């Protein structure tokens, strides 16, 4: 725990975005999303860089979850959702009607607000995705499961009880299991929708340090209500308000010298 606090107090964001920045992983162009008659997103344009943590902040109902869920087309499930604009992932237009959504979601994994493991064994939870995508060979599956659980820093805690129900795990373990499950299909991008809002501080810390470890290999986009969390884990931060992207830039700049007064008001807790 001493270590934990030391890490949390660290002044600098986990990485310097100016250094080792690669080309954009996701390019969002003039994205608008409508639910029936209400417009949830108004012409959002932003580039999400490869292998960095990008945080989306803003008050409830500002459209940050909608933006996140556009990246793996989860808004499609909502029957009255309608999207205009363009999203390119590694140059590929994912909003085209003929996009292979299953393949898109294989490349863009998602972790949800509340840990939602399936009521199956720990092993079957992680193996679910690989099985869906056609891995039948048992040794190969076992390797993927182990590698994913190791990657999600859960292996040592569950290696002797892989056949136990995932429901026997604690909330924080369940959330790491959900991360392992998402990693098991080999995504490039990991979307996290308030992944720690249902967890206690210790479990939250474990998820945050896990994100720090994953940062080097995955492009992570996290929606969070927790400003300190955004400051701790991300190198870039986007502030959304009433469906518009108000400000987007280096986390340090956003939190120290924001250009927009609304950003500053939100960050300093004057509203939201």
């Amino acid at each position: 725990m001493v270590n934990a606090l030391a890490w949390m107090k660290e002044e600098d964001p986990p990485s310097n975005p100016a250094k080792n920045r690669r080309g954009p992983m996701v390019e969002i162009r003039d994205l608008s999303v409508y639910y029936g008659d209400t417009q949830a997103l108004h012409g959002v344009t932003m580039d999400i860089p490869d292998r960095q943590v990008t945080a989306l902040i803003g008050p409830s109902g500002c459209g940050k979850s909608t933006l996140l869920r556009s990246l793996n087309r989860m808004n499609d499930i909502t029957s009255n959702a309608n999207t205009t604009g363009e999203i390119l992932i590694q140059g590929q237009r994912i909003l085209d009607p003929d996009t292979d959504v299953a393949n898109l979601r294989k490349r863009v994994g998602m972790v949800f607000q509340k840990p939602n493991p399936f009521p199956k064994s720990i092993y079957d939870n992680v193996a679910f995705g690989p099985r869906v995508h056609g891995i039948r060979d048992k040794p190969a599956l076992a390797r993927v499961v182990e590698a994913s659980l190791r990657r999600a820093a859960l292996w040592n805690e569950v290696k002797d009880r892989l056949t136990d129900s995932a429901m026997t795990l604690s909330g924080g373990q369940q959330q790491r299991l959900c991360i392992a499950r998402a990693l098991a299909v080999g995504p490039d991008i990991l979307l996290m929708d308030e992944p720690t809002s249902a967890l206690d501080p210790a479990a939250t810390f474990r998820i945050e340090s896990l994100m720090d470890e994953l940062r080097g290999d995955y492009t992570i986009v996290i929606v969070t209500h927790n400003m300190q969390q955004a400051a701790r884990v991300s190198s870039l931060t986007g502030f959304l308000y009433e469906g518009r992207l108000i400000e987007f830039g280096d986390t340090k700049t956003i939190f120290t010298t924001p250009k927009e007064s609304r950003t500053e008001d939100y960050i300093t807790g004057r509203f939201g």
Partner: protein
Amino acid sequence: MNTRALSKTDALVKALLVGASSVSVLVVALVLFFLLKEAVPFLSDSGRSTLFSTRWTPVSFQQEVYGILPLLSGSLLVTAIASTIAVPAGIGGAIYIAELAHPIEREILKPVIEVLAGIPSVVLGFFGLVVVAPLVKQVLGLPSGLTALTGALVLALMALPTVISISEDAIRAVPGTYKEASLALGAGELETIFKVVVPAALPGISAAVLLGIGRVIGETMAVMMVTGNAALLTLSPTESIRTITATIAAEMGEVPFGGTHYHALFLLGAILMLSTFSFNMAAMYAIRKAESK
């Protein structure tokens, strides 16, 4: 209201609730007691030697025979066929209504299924006589339409709404987050339904199947009207059969009080009750075992 009065009210309400729940336990115990009380004398009667005979002729000029095998086989055959039809059809229907149907379709289907559940069994018996029996006769080219298959079809129709509505509730109660998780991993809609939603709803679906089959085993009137009521020992669905329930219902009114035949009918009732009871226990054990996995 002071706390003392409150605790008095609490105690009173608690006593009332305990009383209400004890009544049902008491009734079950009493039913079982009187059933066994009237059934046991048969076992010391001279008629018992014919218990496992293949004929049921309790009223005869030559020899009264109380063979329960044809009745058991009749009940079993009808139940097995009816369940084979109603369980997959019911679960399939529930999946469709809960997951795939358009909201407008659901608005139409649900009330219709509820009406089907409310049709009195005698009326379904009429329907069996007038529609199902002639159909079975014609399609299979049988001399008579009153067969085990006809009975099973009518019973399947009766069990269907139970299986559908309870399974549907169970499927709809599965948290949407499971579905989201599955879809977000790139699983298709049907894959999600069959690999995530249905397995998660399995305890509820099992309860639905149990209640449905329970209704089939216990049903009397409709089967009595359409199965032909010939106590034949057969496993052929195209033959006439007679079920335990139909036998009791048909003969109880005519039987001399306290005679061998009378006790034999009570024994049938006890067998019926014990078999449904053990079926329920076995199924609950299976569900619990599946859940704890």
